[in-house]
Protein backbone atom coordinates (compact mmCIF):
# COMPACT_ATOMS: atom_id res chain seq x y z
CA UNK A 1 0.00 0.00 0.00
CA UNK A 2 2.85 2.36 0.85
CA UNK A 3 4.45 1.49 -2.49
CA UNK A 4 1.24 2.21 -4.35
CA UNK A 5 0.80 5.57 -2.59
CA UNK A 6 4.42 6.38 -3.37
CA UNK A 7 3.70 5.63 -7.03
CA UNK A 8 0.82 8.12 -7.00
CA UNK A 9 2.93 10.86 -5.37
CA UNK A 10 5.81 10.18 -7.78
CA UNK A 11 3.45 10.30 -10.76
CA UNK A 12 1.98 13.66 -9.76
CA UNK A 13 5.45 15.11 -9.19
CA UNK A 14 6.60 13.82 -12.57
CA UNK A 15 3.52 15.27 -14.27
CA UNK A 16 4.04 18.65 -12.57
CA UNK A 17 7.64 18.60 -13.74
CA UNK A 18 6.80 17.58 -17.33
CA UNK A 19 3.91 19.96 -17.78
CA UNK A 20 5.84 22.79 -16.15
CA UNK A 21 2.45 23.99 -14.88
CA UNK A 22 1.57 23.72 -11.19
CA UNK A 23 4.64 24.34 -9.09
CA UNK A 24 6.73 26.71 -11.15
CA UNK A 25 3.80 28.89 -12.16
CA UNK A 26 2.48 29.03 -8.59
CA UNK A 27 5.88 30.06 -7.28
CA UNK A 28 6.36 32.69 -9.98
CA UNK A 29 2.91 34.11 -9.20
CA UNK A 30 3.76 34.20 -5.49
CA UNK A 31 7.01 36.07 -6.08
CA UNK A 32 5.46 38.56 -8.50
CA UNK A 33 2.47 39.28 -6.25
CA UNK A 34 4.74 40.05 -3.30
CA UNK A 35 7.13 42.14 -5.39
CA UNK A 36 4.25 44.27 -6.69
CA UNK A 37 3.30 45.43 -3.18
CA UNK A 38 6.26 47.81 -2.57
CA UNK A 39 5.73 49.22 -6.06
CA UNK A 40 2.15 50.09 -5.16
CA UNK A 41 2.63 51.21 -1.57
CA UNK A 42 5.96 52.96 -1.82
CA UNK A 43 9.23 52.12 -0.19
CA UNK A 44 8.60 53.39 3.32
CA UNK A 45 10.38 50.74 5.34
CA UNK A 46 8.20 50.98 8.40
CA UNK A 47 4.89 50.56 6.58
CA UNK A 48 6.22 47.61 4.61
CA UNK A 49 7.63 45.92 7.71
CA UNK A 50 4.26 46.18 9.42
CA UNK A 51 2.32 44.60 6.56
CA UNK A 52 5.00 42.14 5.38
CA UNK A 53 3.57 39.08 7.16
CA UNK A 54 0.03 39.67 5.94
CA UNK A 55 1.11 40.41 2.37
CA UNK A 56 3.21 37.27 2.10
CA UNK A 57 0.36 35.18 3.49
CA UNK A 58 -2.27 36.61 1.15
CA UNK A 59 0.04 36.02 -1.81
CA UNK A 60 0.62 32.45 -0.62
CA UNK A 61 -3.13 31.75 -0.47
CA UNK A 62 -3.64 33.05 -3.99
CA UNK A 63 -0.66 31.11 -5.33
CA UNK A 64 -1.93 27.89 -3.74
CA UNK A 65 -5.33 28.48 -5.35
CA UNK A 66 -3.84 28.75 -8.85
CA UNK A 67 -3.02 25.10 -9.34
CA UNK A 68 -6.00 23.67 -7.44
CA UNK A 69 -8.56 23.47 -10.20
CA UNK A 70 -6.58 20.80 -12.05
CA UNK A 71 -5.79 18.74 -8.93
CA UNK A 72 -8.54 16.21 -9.60
CA UNK A 73 -10.17 17.56 -12.76
CA UNK A 74 -7.48 16.25 -15.10
CA UNK A 75 -7.85 12.77 -13.61
CA UNK A 76 -11.63 12.86 -13.89
CA UNK A 77 -11.50 13.93 -17.53
CA UNK A 78 -9.09 11.25 -18.75
CA UNK A 79 -10.50 8.35 -16.73
CA UNK A 80 -7.60 8.06 -14.28
CA UNK A 81 -9.93 8.53 -11.33
CA UNK A 82 -12.02 5.50 -12.36
CA UNK A 83 -8.86 3.43 -12.38
CA UNK A 84 -7.76 4.79 -9.01
CA UNK A 85 -11.17 3.83 -7.57
CA UNK A 86 -10.41 0.21 -8.43
CA UNK A 87 -6.90 0.32 -6.98
CA UNK A 88 -6.33 -1.74 -3.87
CA UNK A 89 -6.30 1.47 -1.86
CA UNK A 90 -8.99 3.48 -0.10
CA UNK A 91 -9.91 6.51 -2.20
CA UNK A 92 -9.21 8.60 0.91
CA UNK A 93 -5.58 7.46 0.81
CA UNK A 94 -5.38 8.28 -2.91
CA UNK A 95 -6.68 11.78 -2.17
CA UNK A 96 -4.16 12.17 0.64
CA UNK A 97 -1.31 11.11 -1.65
CA UNK A 98 -2.37 13.57 -4.34
CA UNK A 99 -2.65 16.32 -1.72
CA UNK A 100 0.88 15.56 -0.50
CA UNK A 101 2.11 15.88 -4.09
CA UNK A 102 0.26 19.19 -4.42
CA UNK A 103 1.92 20.50 -1.26
CA UNK A 104 5.35 19.37 -2.49
CA UNK A 105 4.90 21.26 -5.75
CA UNK A 106 3.25 24.44 -4.36
CA UNK A 107 3.32 24.68 -0.56
CA UNK A 108 6.97 23.70 -0.17
CA UNK A 109 8.40 26.13 -2.77
CA UNK A 110 6.26 28.90 -1.28
CA UNK A 111 7.52 28.05 2.22
CA UNK A 112 11.12 28.19 1.03
CA UNK A 113 10.66 31.48 -0.84
CA UNK A 114 8.58 33.25 1.82
CA UNK A 115 11.40 34.27 4.24
CA UNK A 116 13.43 35.79 1.40
CA UNK A 117 10.47 37.72 0.08
CA UNK A 118 9.58 38.87 3.59
CA UNK A 119 13.10 40.30 3.95
CA UNK A 120 12.51 42.16 0.69
CA UNK A 121 9.50 43.75 2.38
CA UNK A 122 11.80 44.93 5.18
CA UNK A 123 10.63 42.33 7.69
CA UNK A 124 13.03 42.46 10.66
CA UNK A 125 15.57 39.67 10.55
CA UNK A 126 14.41 38.48 13.97
CA UNK A 127 10.93 37.69 12.56
CA UNK A 128 12.22 35.44 9.79
CA UNK A 129 12.16 32.24 11.91
CA UNK A 130 8.54 32.96 12.80
CA UNK A 131 7.71 33.55 9.13
CA UNK A 132 9.33 30.27 8.08
CA UNK A 133 7.71 28.30 10.89
CA UNK A 134 4.27 29.77 10.20
CA UNK A 135 4.55 28.94 6.50
CA UNK A 136 5.66 25.39 7.20
CA UNK A 137 2.81 24.92 9.67
CA UNK A 138 0.16 26.63 7.58
CA UNK A 139 0.71 25.70 3.93
CA UNK A 140 -0.40 22.06 4.37
CA UNK A 141 -3.84 23.40 5.30
CA UNK A 142 -3.92 25.31 1.99
CA UNK A 143 -3.43 22.10 0.01
CA UNK A 144 -5.80 20.09 2.21
CA UNK A 145 -8.69 22.55 2.30
CA UNK A 146 -8.03 23.19 -1.37
CA UNK A 147 -8.43 19.49 -2.12
CA UNK A 148 -12.03 19.65 -0.85
CA UNK A 149 -12.85 22.50 -3.21
CA UNK A 150 -10.99 20.86 -6.09
CA UNK A 151 -12.89 17.60 -5.54
CA UNK A 152 -16.25 19.36 -5.41
CA UNK A 153 -15.62 21.07 -8.75
CA UNK A 154 -13.73 18.20 -10.45
CA UNK A 155 -16.64 17.39 -12.73
CA UNK A 156 -17.30 20.99 -13.74
CA UNK A 157 -15.60 22.52 -16.73
CA UNK A 158 -14.16 25.94 -15.99
CA UNK A 159 -14.50 25.25 -12.30
CA UNK A 160 -11.50 27.42 -11.46
CA UNK A 161 -13.44 30.45 -10.32
CA UNK A 162 -15.83 28.29 -8.34
CA UNK A 163 -12.87 26.68 -6.56
CA UNK A 164 -11.71 30.14 -5.45
CA UNK A 165 -15.11 31.02 -4.05
CA UNK A 166 -15.41 27.70 -2.23
CA UNK A 167 -11.87 27.55 -0.90
CA UNK A 168 -10.89 31.12 0.05
CA UNK A 169 -13.29 31.21 3.03
CA UNK A 170 -11.73 27.96 4.24
CA UNK A 171 -8.33 29.65 4.14
CA UNK A 172 -9.36 32.43 6.53
CA UNK A 173 -8.32 30.73 9.82
CA UNK A 174 -4.88 29.86 8.42
CA UNK A 175 -4.46 33.43 7.19
CA UNK A 176 -5.45 34.93 10.55
CA UNK A 177 -3.17 32.80 12.70
CA UNK A 178 -0.33 32.57 10.17
CA UNK A 179 -0.15 36.34 9.76
CA UNK A 180 -0.58 36.79 13.52
CA UNK A 181 2.47 34.59 14.17
CA UNK A 182 4.63 36.90 12.05
CA UNK A 183 3.08 40.04 13.50
CA UNK A 184 3.70 38.93 17.08
CA UNK A 185 7.33 38.19 16.27
CA UNK A 186 7.71 41.65 14.75
CA UNK A 187 6.17 43.25 17.84
CA UNK A 188 8.44 41.18 20.12
CA UNK A 189 5.46 39.33 21.54
CA UNK A 190 5.45 35.56 22.11
CA UNK A 191 4.46 33.88 18.85
CA UNK A 192 4.22 30.24 19.81
CA UNK A 193 0.46 30.36 20.51
CA UNK A 194 -0.62 31.56 17.04
CA UNK A 195 1.93 29.19 15.50
CA UNK A 196 0.40 26.24 17.38
CA UNK A 197 -3.06 27.29 16.24
CA UNK A 198 -1.83 27.47 12.63
CA UNK A 199 -0.46 23.96 12.99
CA UNK A 200 -3.66 22.79 14.65
CA UNK A 201 -5.66 23.99 11.65
CA UNK A 202 -3.40 22.01 9.33
CA UNK A 203 -3.73 18.88 11.47
CA UNK A 204 -7.49 19.26 11.66
CA UNK A 205 -7.62 19.70 7.88
CA UNK A 206 -5.48 16.56 7.46
CA UNK A 207 -8.04 14.62 9.47
CA UNK A 208 -11.08 15.90 7.58
CA UNK A 209 -10.03 16.78 4.03
CA UNK A 210 -9.21 13.31 2.60
CA UNK A 211 -12.62 12.00 3.64
CA UNK A 212 -14.54 15.05 2.42
CA UNK A 213 -12.70 15.15 -0.90
CA UNK A 214 -13.07 11.39 -1.49
CA UNK A 215 -16.78 11.66 -0.79
CA UNK A 216 -17.10 14.48 -3.33
CA UNK A 217 -15.12 12.51 -5.93
CA UNK A 218 -17.33 9.44 -5.53
CA UNK A 219 -20.34 11.62 -6.32
CA UNK A 220 -18.54 13.13 -9.32
CA UNK A 221 -18.01 9.67 -10.81
CA UNK A 222 -21.66 8.57 -10.68
Amino acid sequence: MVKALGAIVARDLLLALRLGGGGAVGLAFFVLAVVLIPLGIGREGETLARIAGGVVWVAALLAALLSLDRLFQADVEDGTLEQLMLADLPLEAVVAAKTVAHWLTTGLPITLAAPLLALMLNLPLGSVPAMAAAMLAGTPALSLAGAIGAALTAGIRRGGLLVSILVLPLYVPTLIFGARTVENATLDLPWSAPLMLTLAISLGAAAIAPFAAAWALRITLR
Partner: protein
Amino acid sequence: MELLIDNLCARRGGRSVFDDLSLRVPAGRALLVTGPNGAGKSTLLRVIAGFLPPATGRVALIDRGETLSGAALQPRLAFAGHMDAVKPALSVAENLALWAGIAGRDRDAIEPALSALGLEAMAGRPAGECSAGQRRRLGLARLLVAERSVWLMDEPTSSLDAGSAAAVSALVARHCDAGGIAVIATHLDMGLHDPLRLDLIPERVAPQGGEGALDPAPKPADADEDPFLVGPADGGAFR
Protein backbone atom coordinates in the same frame (compact mmCIF):
# COMPACT_ATOMS: atom_id res chain seq x y z
CA MET B 1 -15.24 -18.11 -8.62
CA GLU B 2 -18.44 -16.58 -9.91
CA LEU B 3 -19.70 -13.10 -10.63
CA LEU B 4 -23.18 -12.74 -9.27
CA ILE B 5 -25.61 -10.02 -10.27
CA ASP B 6 -28.71 -10.18 -8.17
CA ASN B 7 -31.94 -8.27 -8.84
CA LEU B 8 -29.98 -5.29 -10.05
CA CYS B 9 -31.79 -2.06 -10.87
CA ALA B 10 -30.01 1.06 -12.01
CA ARG B 11 -31.36 4.57 -12.33
CA ARG B 12 -29.78 7.58 -13.94
CA GLY B 13 -31.36 10.97 -13.43
CA GLY B 14 -34.49 9.36 -11.98
CA ARG B 15 -34.99 7.22 -15.08
CA SER B 16 -34.74 3.48 -14.78
CA VAL B 17 -32.04 2.10 -17.08
CA PHE B 18 -32.59 -1.58 -16.33
CA ASP B 19 -34.69 -3.44 -13.82
CA ASP B 20 -34.36 -6.72 -11.97
CA LEU B 21 -31.31 -7.96 -13.77
CA SER B 22 -30.08 -11.25 -12.34
CA LEU B 23 -27.30 -13.33 -13.79
CA ARG B 24 -24.23 -15.34 -12.96
CA VAL B 25 -21.00 -15.50 -14.85
CA PRO B 26 -18.87 -18.49 -13.79
CA ALA B 27 -15.09 -18.53 -13.86
CA GLY B 28 -13.60 -18.93 -17.30
CA ARG B 29 -16.51 -17.37 -19.17
CA ALA B 30 -17.03 -14.10 -20.97
CA LEU B 31 -20.34 -12.26 -20.98
CA LEU B 32 -21.08 -10.20 -24.06
CA VAL B 33 -23.49 -7.36 -23.32
CA THR B 34 -25.13 -6.13 -26.49
CA GLY B 35 -27.91 -3.71 -27.27
CA PRO B 36 -28.56 -0.42 -29.04
CA ASN B 37 -27.09 2.88 -27.87
CA GLY B 38 -28.68 3.97 -24.64
CA ALA B 39 -29.72 0.46 -23.65
CA GLY B 40 -27.59 0.67 -20.50
CA LYS B 41 -24.50 -1.33 -21.44
CA SER B 42 -22.07 1.22 -20.02
CA THR B 43 -24.30 1.81 -17.03
CA LEU B 44 -24.26 -1.91 -16.26
CA LEU B 45 -20.47 -1.93 -16.35
CA ARG B 46 -20.29 1.16 -14.14
CA VAL B 47 -22.67 -0.41 -11.62
CA ILE B 48 -20.58 -3.61 -11.54
CA ALA B 49 -17.44 -1.51 -11.11
CA GLY B 50 -19.06 0.27 -8.16
CA PHE B 51 -18.89 3.75 -9.68
CA LEU B 52 -22.67 4.04 -9.79
CA PRO B 53 -24.50 2.62 -6.76
CA PRO B 54 -27.41 0.38 -7.82
CA ALA B 55 -30.93 1.52 -6.97
CA THR B 56 -31.60 -1.96 -5.64
CA GLY B 57 -29.92 -5.34 -5.82
CA ARG B 58 -26.26 -6.18 -5.58
CA VAL B 59 -23.14 -7.27 -7.42
CA ALA B 60 -20.86 -9.80 -5.78
CA LEU B 61 -17.93 -12.01 -6.56
CA ILE B 62 -18.08 -15.41 -4.91
CA ASP B 63 -14.61 -16.82 -4.55
CA ARG B 64 -13.66 -19.81 -2.41
CA GLY B 65 -16.74 -19.45 -0.26
CA GLU B 66 -16.15 -15.74 0.28
CA THR B 67 -18.67 -13.22 -1.00
CA LEU B 68 -16.98 -9.99 -2.02
CA SER B 69 -18.98 -6.89 -2.79
CA GLY B 70 -18.61 -3.12 -2.70
CA ALA B 71 -15.16 -1.91 -1.67
CA ALA B 72 -13.94 -5.50 -1.21
CA LEU B 73 -14.93 -6.36 -4.78
CA GLN B 74 -13.25 -3.39 -6.44
CA PRO B 75 -9.64 -4.62 -6.07
CA ARG B 76 -10.66 -7.75 -8.03
CA LEU B 77 -11.91 -5.73 -11.00
CA ALA B 78 -10.17 -4.17 -13.95
CA PHE B 79 -12.10 -1.58 -15.94
CA ALA B 80 -11.40 -0.48 -19.50
CA GLY B 81 -13.86 2.29 -20.22
CA HIS B 82 -14.33 4.88 -22.93
CA MET B 83 -11.53 6.90 -21.41
CA ASP B 84 -8.11 5.32 -21.50
CA ALA B 85 -6.57 7.08 -18.45
CA VAL B 86 -3.50 7.90 -20.50
CA LYS B 87 -1.32 10.89 -19.54
CA PRO B 88 -0.02 12.49 -22.75
CA ALA B 89 2.97 14.07 -20.98
CA LEU B 90 4.36 10.67 -19.93
CA SER B 91 5.86 8.08 -22.24
CA VAL B 92 3.91 4.93 -23.13
CA ALA B 93 6.11 2.83 -20.82
CA GLU B 94 5.86 5.40 -18.01
CA ASN B 95 2.07 5.36 -18.24
CA LEU B 96 2.07 1.62 -17.77
CA ALA B 97 4.77 1.75 -15.07
CA LEU B 98 2.49 3.98 -13.00
CA TRP B 99 -0.28 1.40 -13.03
CA ALA B 100 2.19 -1.38 -12.31
CA GLY B 101 3.33 0.65 -9.28
CA ILE B 102 -0.21 1.19 -8.05
CA ALA B 103 -1.01 -2.51 -8.54
CA GLY B 104 2.12 -3.32 -6.53
CA ARG B 105 3.85 -5.09 -9.42
CA ASP B 106 7.40 -4.52 -10.56
CA ARG B 107 8.55 -3.23 -13.89
CA ASP B 108 9.05 -6.71 -15.35
CA ALA B 109 5.30 -6.80 -15.99
CA ILE B 110 5.41 -3.85 -18.36
CA GLU B 111 7.28 -5.26 -21.32
CA PRO B 112 5.11 -8.36 -21.89
CA ALA B 113 1.99 -6.19 -21.66
CA LEU B 114 3.34 -3.76 -24.25
CA SER B 115 4.33 -6.50 -26.67
CA ALA B 116 0.99 -8.30 -26.23
CA LEU B 117 -0.68 -5.21 -27.67
CA GLY B 118 1.97 -4.39 -30.24
CA LEU B 119 3.22 -1.25 -28.51
CA GLU B 120 6.93 -2.15 -28.06
CA ALA B 121 8.02 0.33 -30.71
CA MET B 122 6.10 3.12 -28.96
CA ALA B 123 7.43 2.37 -25.46
CA GLY B 124 9.75 5.39 -25.21
CA ARG B 125 7.54 7.84 -27.09
CA PRO B 126 5.29 10.36 -25.35
CA ALA B 127 1.78 8.97 -25.09
CA GLY B 128 0.55 12.27 -26.53
CA GLU B 129 1.90 11.11 -29.91
CA CYS B 130 -0.26 7.97 -29.87
CA SER B 131 -3.11 7.61 -32.33
CA ALA B 132 -6.58 6.90 -30.95
CA GLY B 133 -6.09 3.20 -31.56
CA GLN B 134 -2.67 3.11 -29.92
CA ARG B 135 -4.03 4.97 -26.92
CA ARG B 136 -6.84 2.45 -26.62
CA ARG B 137 -4.31 -0.38 -26.78
CA LEU B 138 -2.27 1.29 -24.05
CA GLY B 139 -5.44 1.47 -21.93
CA LEU B 140 -6.02 -2.25 -22.53
CA ALA B 141 -2.39 -3.10 -21.71
CA ARG B 142 -3.22 -1.92 -18.20
CA LEU B 143 -5.51 -4.94 -17.81
CA LEU B 144 -2.52 -7.23 -18.25
CA VAL B 145 -0.42 -5.26 -15.77
CA ALA B 146 -3.15 -5.09 -13.13
CA GLU B 147 -3.78 -8.87 -13.03
CA ARG B 148 -7.39 -8.79 -11.90
CA SER B 149 -9.96 -11.61 -11.88
CA VAL B 150 -12.78 -9.76 -13.59
CA TRP B 151 -12.29 -7.62 -16.69
CA LEU B 152 -14.97 -5.03 -17.42
CA MET B 153 -14.59 -3.73 -20.95
CA ASP B 154 -16.66 -1.04 -22.61
CA GLU B 155 -16.42 -1.25 -26.41
CA PRO B 156 -12.82 -2.47 -26.19
CA THR B 157 -12.37 -2.73 -29.94
CA SER B 158 -13.60 0.75 -30.87
CA SER B 159 -10.97 2.63 -32.93
CA LEU B 160 -8.89 -0.56 -33.27
CA ASP B 161 -7.92 -2.06 -36.63
CA ALA B 162 -8.87 -5.65 -37.43
CA GLY B 163 -5.53 -7.06 -36.38
CA SER B 164 -5.53 -5.29 -33.01
CA ALA B 165 -9.16 -6.24 -32.40
CA ALA B 166 -8.24 -9.89 -32.97
CA ALA B 167 -5.32 -9.51 -30.54
CA VAL B 168 -7.69 -8.10 -27.92
CA SER B 169 -10.10 -11.01 -28.47
CA ALA B 170 -7.20 -13.41 -28.02
CA LEU B 171 -6.24 -11.69 -24.75
CA VAL B 172 -9.80 -11.99 -23.46
CA ALA B 173 -9.86 -15.67 -24.47
CA ARG B 174 -6.55 -16.23 -22.68
CA HIS B 175 -7.83 -14.44 -19.58
CA CYS B 176 -10.93 -16.65 -19.53
CA ASP B 177 -8.91 -19.83 -20.17
CA ALA B 178 -6.84 -18.92 -17.13
CA GLY B 179 -10.03 -18.92 -15.07
CA GLY B 180 -10.86 -15.23 -15.30
CA ILE B 181 -14.17 -13.56 -16.02
CA ALA B 182 -14.83 -10.88 -18.63
CA VAL B 183 -17.88 -8.67 -19.04
CA ILE B 184 -17.75 -6.92 -22.38
CA ALA B 185 -20.11 -4.31 -23.77
CA THR B 186 -19.77 -4.53 -27.53
CA HIS B 187 -21.47 -4.37 -30.89
CA LEU B 188 -19.12 -6.94 -32.37
CA ASP B 189 -18.93 -10.65 -31.82
CA MET B 190 -15.29 -10.45 -30.64
CA GLY B 191 -14.68 -13.94 -32.08
CA LEU B 192 -14.89 -15.50 -28.62
CA HIS B 193 -15.63 -19.19 -28.24
CA ASP B 194 -19.03 -19.79 -26.66
CA PRO B 195 -19.54 -16.55 -24.74
CA LEU B 196 -22.59 -15.89 -22.59
CA ARG B 197 -24.84 -13.22 -24.02
CA LEU B 198 -27.04 -10.53 -22.56
CA ASP B 199 -29.06 -8.37 -24.90
CA LEU B 200 -30.19 -5.17 -23.23
CA ILE B 201 -33.08 -3.30 -24.74
CA PRO B 202 -33.95 0.22 -23.61
CA GLU B 203 -36.14 0.33 -20.50
CA ARG B 204 -36.58 -3.43 -20.49
CA VAL B 205 -34.16 -6.31 -20.17
CA ALA B 206 -34.39 -9.35 -22.39
CA PRO B 207 -31.83 -12.11 -22.10
CA GLN B 208 -30.85 -14.27 -25.02
CA GLY B 209 -29.44 -17.80 -24.96
CA GLY B 210 -25.78 -18.34 -25.74
CA GLU B 211 -25.80 -21.93 -27.04
CA GLY B 212 -27.97 -23.23 -24.26
CA ALA B 213 -26.02 -21.48 -21.56
CA LEU B 214 -29.12 -19.61 -20.55
CA ASP B 215 -31.80 -21.11 -18.49
CA PRO B 216 -34.97 -19.16 -19.03
CA ALA B 217 -36.68 -20.73 -16.04
CA PRO B 218 -38.03 -18.53 -13.27
CA LYS B 219 -35.22 -17.79 -10.88
CA PRO B 220 -35.00 -20.23 -7.99
CA ALA B 221 -33.21 -19.02 -4.90
CA ASP B 222 -30.55 -21.72 -4.95
CA ALA B 223 -29.82 -22.67 -8.53
CA ASP B 224 -26.22 -23.53 -8.03
CA GLU B 225 -25.95 -25.89 -10.97
CA ASP B 226 -27.08 -23.28 -13.45
CA PRO B 227 -23.97 -21.63 -14.80
CA PHE B 228 -25.89 -18.63 -15.98
CA LEU B 229 -29.32 -17.55 -15.03
CA VAL B 230 -31.36 -14.55 -15.93
CA GLY B 231 -34.65 -13.62 -14.37
CA PRO B 232 -37.15 -11.86 -16.59
CA ALA B 233 -37.77 -8.18 -16.17
CA ASP B 234 -40.87 -7.63 -14.08
CA GLY B 235 -42.06 -11.10 -15.02
CA GLY B 236 -42.19 -10.15 -18.71
CA ALA B 237 -41.61 -12.47 -21.61
CA PHE B 238 -38.19 -13.45 -22.84
CA ARG B 239 -37.21 -12.50 -26.29
